[in-house]
């Protein structure tokens, strides 16, 4: 039996071996199961230099990173407000280390007067499928942090719920809200201020106009009068700029658009602003208005304001001997107007700010050149309201500046604003007016642009217009024997006063009329009524009111 012990031993050995193999297999299976079921999140890998541990970045790791990285506070709570976990965002909001927040009652961090609110939010969050509200948190440094709280009950695992709180810091938002309130108050103040500043100028200007036409005054005072006139007008313009700026800020800048020949408007602006330069030869003024078509759907007086702004700037900032070049050309469906000068130019770093309100480029400019720094802000806003662009370029300080205005023309004109199209309000009213009798209107206005605008409007409404610019020619028209239904008259006329004209027209010819005036104070309105005007409209005239008055007169004639 020599082989028997060997056999027995072999059997024992085999049994042991099998047992050991079974244990290894079990371990391997167990490892696979654990990995498969997600119970493992790191592996040890034997590498050349020894063991290395690799953690598995599981899907929820990205959520953890997100929650840690987000600026909001994320807190998980028990139903009664005990903090189980919070992210760094929440701890930072409270200016506390993380471990001093976790395991605390959330109420510790909420202003005491808001505890009833907090309790309600917790209750609703837990039972009512979510709750939210604004509260004030108390930070460790004693500061109060306005915050938005949103509670939600979440099923973390099957039948295990946790209350999740997301906290948004409202400090910045509250600050912006306060600032915007302040801003509204500022705009309101500026609007009131400019109105109050403008009011006393009206009678002064009326008196100046009267004195200037008074032959009894000695000629020596003419220069003084002219100086007073110039300066009062300058002041009025500055205040108007301020008014415009407040209108832009509040979005109440209104345009009175019609088909306008901008070439003509530009040429007039050049005459006004550069005539002296041309006459004196101090600065060279070059005009190349070569665009084939200058017509655009535009507000002529507003664009004239833009041109005058650009031109006075060019004159102001160009030293004697310099050149101001004004060009126009067409680009696709745009009219381009360029005003280039060889003046002091604009530093590259100041270019982007040049259209900001109250910005005047380099420091000291305001002291040297005066002004409020509103012209370009207003100009750009006006151009943008026309669907155009106003841009600036300058190679640098001392190297001149070029302002370029692009405004839609041609086909774009009809796409913009409210040009007269079939079915548009203007046409509809014109049709409506056609049902009413046509009026013959005597329009007395010495300001050519205004006269043209009113005349265009009346014609569009189906009426006939006789345009005159002086008291004398108005009286002539009345005496001509042609029937006049209605008078629309300016008050400050070159050869007299609109009040006197109306008295004459009413008493001698039985005419009715309305007054248009730059002045709209109670006293002005009373004077107009005394003179026999049925209505006193303040310039810029509200066209809707104007149309309503005309409609009423026409209806009465019927």
């Amino acid at each position, binding site marked *: 039996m020599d082989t028997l012990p060997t056999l027995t031993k072999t059997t024992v050995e085999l049994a*042991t071996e099998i*047992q050991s193999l079974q*244990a290894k297999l079990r*371990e391997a299976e*167990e*490892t696979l*199961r*654990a*990995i498969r*079921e*997600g*119970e*493992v*999140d*790191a*592996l*040890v890998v034997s590498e050349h230099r*020894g*063991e*290395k*541990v690799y*953690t*598995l970045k*599981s899907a*929820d790791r990205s959520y953890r990173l997100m929650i840690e990285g987000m600026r909001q506070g994320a807190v998980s709570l028990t139903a009664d407000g005990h903090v189980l976990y919070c992210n760094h965002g929440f701890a930072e909001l409270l200016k506390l280390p993380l471990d001093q927040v976790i395991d605390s009652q959330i109420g510790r961090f909420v202003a005491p007067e808001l505890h009833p609110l907090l309790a309600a939010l917790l209750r609703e969050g837990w039972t009512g499928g979510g709750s939210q509200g604004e509260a004030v948190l108390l930070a460790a440094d004693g500061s109060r942090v306005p915050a938005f709280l949103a509670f939600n009950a979440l099923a973390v695992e099957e039948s295990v719920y946790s209350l999740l709180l997301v906290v948004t810091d409202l400090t910045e938002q509250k600050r912006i809200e306060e600032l915007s309130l302040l801003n509204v108050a500022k705009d309101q103040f500026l609007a009131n201020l400019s109105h109050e500043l403008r009011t006393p100028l009206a009678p002064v200007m009326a008196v100046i106009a009267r004195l200037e036409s008074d032959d009894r005054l000695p000629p020596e005072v003419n220069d003084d009068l002219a100086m007073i006139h110039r300066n009062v007008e300058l002041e009025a313009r500055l205040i108007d700029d301020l008014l415009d700026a407040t209108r832009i800020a509040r979005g109440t800048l209104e345009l009175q658009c019609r088909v306008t020949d901008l070439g003509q408007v530009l040429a007039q602006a050049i005459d006004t602003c550069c005539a002296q330069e041309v006459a004196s030869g101090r600065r060279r003024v070059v005009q190349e208005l070569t665009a084939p078509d200058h017509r655009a759907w535009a507000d002529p007086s507003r664009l004239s304001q833009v041109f005058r702004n650009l031109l006075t700037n060019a004159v102001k900032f160009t030293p004697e001997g310099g050149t101001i070049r004004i060009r126009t050309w067409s680009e696709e469906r745009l009219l381009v107007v360029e005003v280039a000068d060889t003046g002091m130019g604009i530093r590259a770093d100041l270019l982007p700010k040049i259209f900001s309100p109250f910005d005047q480029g380099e420091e000291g400019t305001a002291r040297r050149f005066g002004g409020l720094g509103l012209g370009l802000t207003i100009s750009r806003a006006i151009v943008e309201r026309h669907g155009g662009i106003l841009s600036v370029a300058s190679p640098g300080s001392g190297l001149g500046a070029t302002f370029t205005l692009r405004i839609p023309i041609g086909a774009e004109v009809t796409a913009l604003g409210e040009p007269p199209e079939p079915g548009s309000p203007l046409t509809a009213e014109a049709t409506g007016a056609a049902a009413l009798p046509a009026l013959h209107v005597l329009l007395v206005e010495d300001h050519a642009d205004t006269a043209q605008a009113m005349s265009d409007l009346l014609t569009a409404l189906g009426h006939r217009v006789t345009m005159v610019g002086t008291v004398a020619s108005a009286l002539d028209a009345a005496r001509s024997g042609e029937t006049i239904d209605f008078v629309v008259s300016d008050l400050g006329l070159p050869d007299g006063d609109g009040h006197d004209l109306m008295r004459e027209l009413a008493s001698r010819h039985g005419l009715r009329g309305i007054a248009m005036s730059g002045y709209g104070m109670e006293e002005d309105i009373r004077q107009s009524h005394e003179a026999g005007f049925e209505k006193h409209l303040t310039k810029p005239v509200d066209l809707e009111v104007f149309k309503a008055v005309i409609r009423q007169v026409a209806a009465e004639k019927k």
Partner: protein
Amino acid sequence: MSAEKETASLSPDARADGLEMWDLRLYVAGQTPRSVAALANLKKFCDENLPGQYRIEVIDLVQNPKLAQSDQILAIPTLVRRLPEPIRKIIGDLSNSERVLVGLDLRPRS
């Protein structure tokens, strides 16, 4: 080897009679969620099933990767029962206490 075989076949009741200490080693990888969960589950399990007769050694393989060799650790977390012998390993976060009972031979395999 025969002793090991005997121990392995002992019933939990028989084991509870003795006062032998359980020497457990938990291999973790820093503060990974499964590592943290495994430690919490293990503590709870031992307090319930082995009150006063266990010792847990936590080995962080992130700090000491070499220590993986002695128990041939592959996946983390892994629990190793050093004592009583034989050595047993349970892989995973120990969230299923039934499986832990079986794995530690506190309940016979089905």
